């Protein structure tokens, strides 16, 4: 380059700068060291642009990895929008690919306007790095210096880029390597893991399998002959399977010196060849059989073998056994001509034993099928066989049948086929059975059968179980059945229904016990007739005692049986006859002097047992009564000497000591030669008859006695004549006849009858009646006595039914009648007394009853009054009124008529004749004027001995009391006594009650004293106040008269109020007699409220009342009812003493209700106090029961008795809430108002 000196400084400067630039560029690599391509390029471009003042610098960097290059550009200025490096690259593409390098190039400025001069530098020998383009608008661009710089820079860059690329490559390779290593490692780890897992599984398997497993090392001797092996590893089951302990490491020869050679050979072979082997073999020394699988493991050179084995010793033993059994079976079958078979119908498989083949005459090589079987089956049996087989395969049930076979040569065999069905697990049926050639047996059977059919008699055979398998022809002919109808158990209908049961049970027993059978039964003939047969059967036993079969026959015993029956019947009748008549029969042999025969009854008569005792003469004789023995012997002697008919009586003594009377008859029996052979006769026990005779005699005498005692006579009257054919002694007595009068006639009899009763008696007695009758009538005895007769008659008929006579009794029932009516009256009177009937009514009824008892009698009762001096008439309905008046009163005394005297003397006074008796001196005339001619009086004495009164009877004629009258008087007095005493007692009781009520009232009043005082003081105070006020008010000049008047009026009111209270109190305190008046209960309630008002205030008790709208009217005593209600109210308040004040409420309610059809008024008092337990309710009303400390306990008892005396009830109920309710009910007063109820009695008490 020529150096221009003129421009020397500038040049130098320029150079310097260029050198600097160069140095800078040289220094670039250090900057670039280690950088990557991108930064190298950008640094380069930067430097170039600034150093050379380029417009832009562009570099294309080729990519070693992929083919697309990367464009870089650095611009001096950035127009907007800034051009992309790629754009510039594309623009410069022409130059980049062109080969000419050195010529300065001009190009349109891709990075702006105009044109630029470009300088191109290629990087790399083959552009493998890239290309560099510098561009500038300067005209002289690029100067040589710039070019130099450019090149140098490019070279530097090239080197750096190359290095960078190399480095990149290295890095990439290293990364790749790393990645590969990592992958590899992962693979290895996974493989190890898998290996470990499988190791574990293997170990588990190894340890847990039941089979033995071991690995061995085979030891070889010379010539590679295996001689021994050593156990390397064994699993736990190894020991179990082999019995060898601690095998590991040991040699087999060591463990079992006698171990078979083949083992070593086998293992050696496996170890050498590597071929696995499966085999079974025996290890004799170990006493075991094994099933083994052995295979080589590891390197062939190691000679290791693994063995998996199982101990099959048992199986092997079983197999051996099975084989043995099979052999036996086969032999057995051959010997017994029995073949066995197995048949699976579902798949048609059929298995036959050897013998079966032989039986069917098939070659053993053939496959057994059902068809083959059928081919051999006899045509006649084909259907049966097919059916049986078909059914069996369907039902799956056992079968057992016989059929014939026809062999190819035409011979016939009989076979019996027995099969047993078994179900496999799948449900499929499999048959196991046997085929037996029973031809010979059958032939033998047939022969016998022929014999049997020929022999006369109904013969049959049966199997051991009783199944009839053969019936002879005769059997079939008789019964008319076919063989099919009779075989097996089907023969049963042949027997009579009544006998069948017995036959069956006996037959079954015989079969079971293997004992011969014998039973009689009726067998039905073909025509329907039944005939008796004797059925017998015998078992055929083998040597072991087992039944092979039954052989039996039925014999016709019908006629024989009929005869038997008849005979038995006759015998029974005869025996019965003897028994009933207590007659025994006997036969006596003269020759042997011994009894030939005694009938059953004969035994019994003598006290022997017909079934067990002998009939010897000697024993009978022993029983004869000692006293009669000689007579008996005497007779015996005579009868032995010559034939006589005899009749003797004697007694016998039975073993228990009883004596019986015997009447014996005897008759001789002669033989054909006329010789005395025997005696026959009867013996009769006549004890009963004898006894009966005696008893009759006795009863006759009793009867006579009884009649006498009971005043009963008996009679018999012939109807036709009316004649009394028979009359007993007592009859005459009763009727009042004389024995010497003889036979009583009907008319005489009727005359006796009381006129009033005659007609009815005549009708019955002489009438046409033919039935039993009973009659009551009176008779009048000669003395005038009237007696009551009761007669009973009974008709007696002749055998032809005609009425022959009446028999009957007559009985004197006078006493009884009297007693009855008296008793009935007494009962009635006592009932009246018990029922509380008023005394006068009772006494009047008494007198009436007595009067009825005795006609003409007038009875009366007088009662003694309190002073014991005067008798007052108390009753006497029959007594003339005037007379009663006269005797009111009658002063008692020693001479005061019958009653007065009787009361005075305290004993009965009988005045038969009033007219003459001194006792009646004073009253004679009056009495006689009233027609009273006799008077008997008995005093009525109390239990304490004092005279209550008298009972007297009057008569209108002179009369003394008979027994009967005295009895009447006695009874009447007694009743009167009871009545009067009771009345007096009742009276006292009522008085006592009233007193007690009064006392209680007073005490209640006492409890209320404070209240009463208060009640009175209030009005009094008011009065005083008002009066004083008046005094104050009046003196003033201008008195307030109005006020004064008011005050005075109030004074009057208050005074009355006070007076009311007093009056009420007084009333309560009075012991007035009880009144019964119609009362309005509301008034009672109001009274009590007034009385209790203050008390309730004091005690802070609130009283509510509930009053009905209709007035509850009752009959009663106001004071007493007030007392009751007050008692209840006070009790109620007392009960609430402990209750909290606000809760002290007393409720008084009244209402009417109907109960049992009667109208009642009810009042209830309900408190809210302590209440009472239900079980205490009755105690509350007891006298002296109280819960109050100061109480006497009489209040409720008295209240109850008051209410009950009013005809009501008083009771208590627990309230629904706390507390108790006391209630009383009273019968409503009968309407209309104003009428009084029944008086309490106006008798003086």
């Amino acid at each position, binding site marked *: 380059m020529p150096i221009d000196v003129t421009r020397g400084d500038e040049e130098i400067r320029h150079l310097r700068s260029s050198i600097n630039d160069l140095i800078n560029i040289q220094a670039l690599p250090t900057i670039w060291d280690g950088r990557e391509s991108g930064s190298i390029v950008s640094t380069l471009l930067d430097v170039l642009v600034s150093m050379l003042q380029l417009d832009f610098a562009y570099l294309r960097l080729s990519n070693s990895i992929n083919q697309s290059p990367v464009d870089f550009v650095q611009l001096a200025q950035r127009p907007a929008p800034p051009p992309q490096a790629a754009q510039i690259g594309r623009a410069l593409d022409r130059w980049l690919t062109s080969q000419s390098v050195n010529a300065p190039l001009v190009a349109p400025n891709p990075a702006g306007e105009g044109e630029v001069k470009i300088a191109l530098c290629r990087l790399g020998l083959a552009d493998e790095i890239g290309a560099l383009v510098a561009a500038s608008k300067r005209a002289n661009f690029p100067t040589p210096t710039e070019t130099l710089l450019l090149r140098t820079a490019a070279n530097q860059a090239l080197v750096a880029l190359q290095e960078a690329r190399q480095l990149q490559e290295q890095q990439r390779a290293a990364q790749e390597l790393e990645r590969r290593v990592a992958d590899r490692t992962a693979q290895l780890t996974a493989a190890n893991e898998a290996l470990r897992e499988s190791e574990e599984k293997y170990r588990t398997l190894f340890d847990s399998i039941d089979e033995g497993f071991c690995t061995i090392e085979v030891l070889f001797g010379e010539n590679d002959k295996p001689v021994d092996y050593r156990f390397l590893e064994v699993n736990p089951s190894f020991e179990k399977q082999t019995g060898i302990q601690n095998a590991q490491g040991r040699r087999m020869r060591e463990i079992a010196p006698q171990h078979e050679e083949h083992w070593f050979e086998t293992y050696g072979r496996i170890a050498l060849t590597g071929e696995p082997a499966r085999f079974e073999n025996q290890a004799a020394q170990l006493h075991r059989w094994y099933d083994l699988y052995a295979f080589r493991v590891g390197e062939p050179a190691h000679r290791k073998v693994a063995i998996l084995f199982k101990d099959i010793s048992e199986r092997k033993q079983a197999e051996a056994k099975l084989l043995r059994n099979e052999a036996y079976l086969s032999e057995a079958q051959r010997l017994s001509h029995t073949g066995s078979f197995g048949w699976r119908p579902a798949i048609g498989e059929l298995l036959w034993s050897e013998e079966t083949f032989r039986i069917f005459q098939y070659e053993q090589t053939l496959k057994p099928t059902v068809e083959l079987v059928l081919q051999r089956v006899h045509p006649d049996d084909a259907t049966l066989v097919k059916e049986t087989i078909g059914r069996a395969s369907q039902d799956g049930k056992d079968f057992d049948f016989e059929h014939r076979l026809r062999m190819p040569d035409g011979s016939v065999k009989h076979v019996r086929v027995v099969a047993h069905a078994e179900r496999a697990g799948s449900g499929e049926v499999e048959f196991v059975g046997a085929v037996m050639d029973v031809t010979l047996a059958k032939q033998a059977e047939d022969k016998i059968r022929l014999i049997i059919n020929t022999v006369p008699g109904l013969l049959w055979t049966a199997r051991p179980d009783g199944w009839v398998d053969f019936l002879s022809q005769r059997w079939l002919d008789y019964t008319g059945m076919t063989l099919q109808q009779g075989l097996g158990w089907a023969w049963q209908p042949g027997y009579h229904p009544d006998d069948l049961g017995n036959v069956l049970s006996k037959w079954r027993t015989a079969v079971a016990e293997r004992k011969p059978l014998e039973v009689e039964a009726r067998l039905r003939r073909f025509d329907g007739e039944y005939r008796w047969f004797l059925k017998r059967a015998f078992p055929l036993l083998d040597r072991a005692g087992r039944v092979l079969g039954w052989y039996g026959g039925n014999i016709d015993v019908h006629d024989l049986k009929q005869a038997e029956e008849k005979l038995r019947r006759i015998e029974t009748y005869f025996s019965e006859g003897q028994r009933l008549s207590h007659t025994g029969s006997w036969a006596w042999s003269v020759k042997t002097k011994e009894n030939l025969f005694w009938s059953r009854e004969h035994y019994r008569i003598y006290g022997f047992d017909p079934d067990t005792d002998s009939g010897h003469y000697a024993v009978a004789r022993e029983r004869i009564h000692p006293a009669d023995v000689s007579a008996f012997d005497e007779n015996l002697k005579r009868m032995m000497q010559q034939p006589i008919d005899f009749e003797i009586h004697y007694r016998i003594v039975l073993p228990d000591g009883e004596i019986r009377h015997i009447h014996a008859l005897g008759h001789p029996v002669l033989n054909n030669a006329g010789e005395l052979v025997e005696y026959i006769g009867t013996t009769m026990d006549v004890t009963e008859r004898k006894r009966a005779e005696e008893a009759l005699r006795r009863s006759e005498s009793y009867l006579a006695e009884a009649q006498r005692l009971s005043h009963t006579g008996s009679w018999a009257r012939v109807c036709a004549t009316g004649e009394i054919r028979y009359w007993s002694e007592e009859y005459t007595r009763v009727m009042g006849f004389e024995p010497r009068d003889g036979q009583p006639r009907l008319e005489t009899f009727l005359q006796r009858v009381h006129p009033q009763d005659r007609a009815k008696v005549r009708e019955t007695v002489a009438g046409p009646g033919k039935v039993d009758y009973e009659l009551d009538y009176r008779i009048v005895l000669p003395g005038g006595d009237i007696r009551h007769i009761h007669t009973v008659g009974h008709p007696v008929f002749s055998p032809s039914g005609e009425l022959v006579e009446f028999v009957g009794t007559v009985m004197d029932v006078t006493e009884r009648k009297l007693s009855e009516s008296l008793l009935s009256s007494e009962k009635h009177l006592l009932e009246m007394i018990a029922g509380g009937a008023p005394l006068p009514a009772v006494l009047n009824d008494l007198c009436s009853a007595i009067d009825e008892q005795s006609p003409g009698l007038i009875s009366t009762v007088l009662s003694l009054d309190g002073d014991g001096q005067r008798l007052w008439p108390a009753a006497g309905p029959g007594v003339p009124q005037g007379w009663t008046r006269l005797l009111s009163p009658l002063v008692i005394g020693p001479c005061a008529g019958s009653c007065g005297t009787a009361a005075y003397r305290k004993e009965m006074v009988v005045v038969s004749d009033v007219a003459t008796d001194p006792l009646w001196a004073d009253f004679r005339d009056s009495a006689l004027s009233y027609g009273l001619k006799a008077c008997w009086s008995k005093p009525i004495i109390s239990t304490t001995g004092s005279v209550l009164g008298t009972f007297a009877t009057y008569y209108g004629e002179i009369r003394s009391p008979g027994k009967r009258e005295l009895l009447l008087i006695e009874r009447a007095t007694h009743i009167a006594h009871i009545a009067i005493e009771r009345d007096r007692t009742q009276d006292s009781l009522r008085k006592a009650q009233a007193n007690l009520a009064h006392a209680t009232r007073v005490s209640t009043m006492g409890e209320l004293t404070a209240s009463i005082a208060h009640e009175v003081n209030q009005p009094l105070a008011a009065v005083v106040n008002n009066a004083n006020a008046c005094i104050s008010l009046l003196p003033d000049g201008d008195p307030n008269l109005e006020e004064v008047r008011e005050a005075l009026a109030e004074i009057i009111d208050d005074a009355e109020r006070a007076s009311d209270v007093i009056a009420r109190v007084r009333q309560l305190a009075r012991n007035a007699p009880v009144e019964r008046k119609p009362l309005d209960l509301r008034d009672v309630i109001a009274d009590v409220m007034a009385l209790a008002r203050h008390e309730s*205030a004091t005690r802070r008790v609130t009283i509510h009342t509930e009053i009905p709208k209709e007035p509850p009217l009752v009959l009663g005593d106001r004071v007493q009812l007030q007392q009751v209600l007050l008692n209840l109210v006070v009790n109620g308040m007392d009960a609430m003493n402990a209750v909290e004040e606000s809760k002290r409420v007393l409720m008084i309610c009244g209402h009417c209700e109907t109960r049992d059809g009667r109208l009642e008024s009810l009042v209830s008092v309900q408190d809210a106090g302590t209440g009472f337990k239900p079980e205490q309710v009755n105690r509350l009303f007891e006298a002296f029961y109280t819960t109050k400390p100061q109480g006497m306990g009489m209040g409720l008892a008295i209240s109850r008795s008051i209410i009950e005396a009013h005809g009501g009830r008083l009771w208590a109920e627990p309230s629904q809430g706390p507390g108790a309710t006391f209630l009383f009910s009273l019968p409503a007063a009968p309407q209309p108002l104003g009428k009084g109820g029944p008086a309490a009695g106006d008798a003086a008490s």
Partner: protein
Amino acid sequence: MNEAGAIVFVVDDDLSVRRSTERLVRSAGFNVQSFGSAAEFLRNPRPEGPACLVLDVRMPGLNGMDLQHQLNLAGIHIPIIFITGHGDIPMSVRAMKAGAVEFLTKPFRSRSLLDAIRAAIERDRLTHKERSETAELRQHYEQLTPREREVMALVVAGMLNKQIAGELATTERTVKFHRAHIMQKMNAKSLADLVRMVEKLGVSSRSQ
């Protein structure tokens, strides 16, 4: 004899008694108000002037004795005259101990009742007077300065002015000065008067 401002209350559940008593008392010239029950009476506003109460013992609801007790508890000191239909000694003793003026049984003499009423009214009046006097004194007392109270306490203790001065570390003259004011404020005519006043007030002699 009309007592101005005095009023008599009558409480009895019995109508006649109530009316008649009212009439009687009115006729004697008193103002009367009557009630049928203790509850009714309690509902009534307190009387202004002197009053007394004629009270029945036995009444439903709140009875006389209970009413007396309640009034005592409430601090209402109206004098009570009990009347009763029946009384016993223990009851009357109890009533009197509880502060009743009189205990009369019905029927009572009018004179007894009227005398008792008068006594009761008088008592009530006195009580009132007492109370108002004490109230007045208290008012005066409030007006005293603390120093004056100190001085007064010592004065009524009987100390000399000189002593008082020494005690309070002041001059006699000052003491005298205070004293004059005390007397004036308390409206006491004399030392004795003052002493009485102090006693009534119930302040202690030494200062508090």
